[in-house]
């Protein structure tokens, strides 16, 4: 084998359904782009703990994590390995409190959310909508 195993940090994000089947999107303070809530897993936390922590930090919401629905791997601009995992989640409550990482939020229909997000995150929304039980 000529190739090395990927060594990556793992970004976990929530396709978070709330009232009226709408999905939560948040706007980054850094560049104004829209994204799904979530972030990188810390060392020594479980997958579920990590995602719940990130969503709570960014939105104040508690979530029920149902299942993973989409994964992707890439390298960032500095060549560091990244692995992304998207989960289908349900919001427990709808009172959003943002952290200073984000400046705005919106609850959108799946098709409107897919349009506003990056291509990868939009694909995750589409998959979540298809795989919903």
């Amino acid at each position: 084998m000529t190739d090395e195993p990927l060594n990556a940090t793992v970004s976990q994000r929530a396709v978070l359904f709330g009232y009226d089947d709408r999905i939560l999107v948040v706007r980054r303070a850094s560049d104004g782009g829209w994204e799904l809530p979530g972030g990188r897993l810390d060392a020594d936390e479980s997958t579920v703990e990590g995602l719940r922590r990130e969503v709570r930090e960014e939105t104040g919401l508690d979530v029920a994590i149902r299942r993973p629905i989409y994964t992707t791997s890439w390298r960032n601009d500095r060549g560091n390995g990244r692995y992304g995992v998207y989960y289908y989640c349900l919001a427990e409550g709808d009172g959003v409190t943002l952290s200073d990482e984000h400046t705005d939020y919106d609850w959108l229909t799946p098709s409107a959310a897919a349009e506003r997000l990056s291509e990868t995150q939009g694909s995750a929304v589409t998959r979540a909508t298809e795989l919903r039980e």
Partner: protein
Amino acid sequence: MTDEHLQATISQKAALFGPDGDVLLLRRASSGRWDVPGGRLLASEDVVTGLRREVREETGLDVDVEEPIYTDTWRTKEGDGRYAVVFRCTTDSRAVELSDEHRDWQWTDPERAVDDVLSPSELRTAIERAARRRAVVR
């Protein structure tokens, strides 16, 4: 942020269903334990390419990768981070050709795999969930 980010290699595994709905289990040459096919993603690969390569190397089978079913993370005894994802996969062939990594295989009913063959609880949960999805996926 008080904690540091996990730095991990990514283990991708297949809950692989054959044409009649049986699931494929492989017996490791090293430990003698039953497992499912899969392995570490390489730096140059995308998710689906990596999993298809690993399954082909270990079983000779071409598979369709459908959807992630289960995720888990841990540290090895040496302290290295691991992140694992089990995907639901299907194939229309039952003709397995093993590599040196395994010494035996079986196609078996998912319920039997969970109750009688697999010991790690994570794998049992993953197979159970993957089997339940079977009727639902297009």
